[in-house]
């Protein structure tokens, strides 16, 4: 194998996209070629650096909140939901529906993520509503 042939395959090797046969061929070439060895080393180094969590971004909480708010379950109010509806909602969509059920009560509920569901559950439990809804 020449450097020309190895060229693009070096990248496929770095990315684990080669079958065993080609992997062996490219590795054998790289082992005997300082130029390809250097490239392989650098591309692996770059790959490792870019995989670091600090290179990724974390979505802002306000964005998460905006998306959550746009989902139907966050806007459903249970004031209009009857007893059978309540049962279906709890079965069907988990924390979001519990949140929605809780909106019928004048309790202040902070917008959060999973913690919100637990807090709402605790609230409903405190109001002795959980046995009715389960």
């Amino acid at each position, binding site marked *: 194998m020449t450097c020309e042939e190895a*060229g693009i395959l070096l990248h496929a090797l770095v990315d684990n996209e080669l079958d065993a046969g080609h992997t062996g061929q490219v590795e054998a070439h790289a082992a005997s070629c300082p130029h390809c060895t250097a490239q392989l080393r650098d591309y692996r180094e*770059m790959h490792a650096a*870019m995989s670091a969590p600090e290179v990724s*971004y974390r*979505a802002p909480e306000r964005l998460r909140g905006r*998306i959550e708010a746009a989902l*139907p379950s966050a806007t459903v109010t249970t004031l209009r939901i009857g007893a059978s509806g309540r049962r279906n909602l709890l079965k069907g*969509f988990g924390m979001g529906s519990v949140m929605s059920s809780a909106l019928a009560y004048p309790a202040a509920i902070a917008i959060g993520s999973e913690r919100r569901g637990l807090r709402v559950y605790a609230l409903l439990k405190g109001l002795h509503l959980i046995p009715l809804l389960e």
Partner: protein
Amino acid sequence: MSDKAEGEDAARAGRFRAAALPHLDAVYTLARYLLRDSSDAEDAVQECYLRALRHFDTLRNQDVKPWLFAILRNVCRVEYGRRSRVLLYDVNAEPDNAEGVMPLWREAQDTPETEMLHKIDAQTVRGLVAALPDVFREVIVLREIEDLSYREIATIVGVPVGTVMSRLARGRAMLREAWLKAESNEQHAAKRAGKQVEESEENCK
């Protein structure tokens, strides 16, 4: 809307939430690199999730993350491409022969193998990736940061796997060159700083 219909909507939203929200950071990361602006990225991600919810029923035995990426890419290309003077993601109009003008191995050989890459800080890495031209940046981000396979990238970008490979190779070669320059600049800056410290110490004597 009837209680039943509301319940179904909410149940669907619940399934969507469980499937799509765990990928929010990844989708936002892609948006940040594609648009290079935090505010635009937030808007694009929100629009992506709204569209994804609308089309959630069309998702069949498909990984959610690449599916969200494809939607996001479309949002960025169509919505935000219009805002920019330079059309973002004009990949379909971009002639592939531009990628093939210079053979990849020759481009890489311009950098001597004695020059080794060294670690640079994550902020600099972000800057180097963000500075890549659109067509190369998106495949680099999808592969290196989002860890997608060639086939997944090809599906998202809408090009053959071979094109993904050539763009990746070219993008990495450009990145490697920029990386070495960034290291060199850092070293110069460190030397300059060291010299200034020495000079100020001399002046103090």
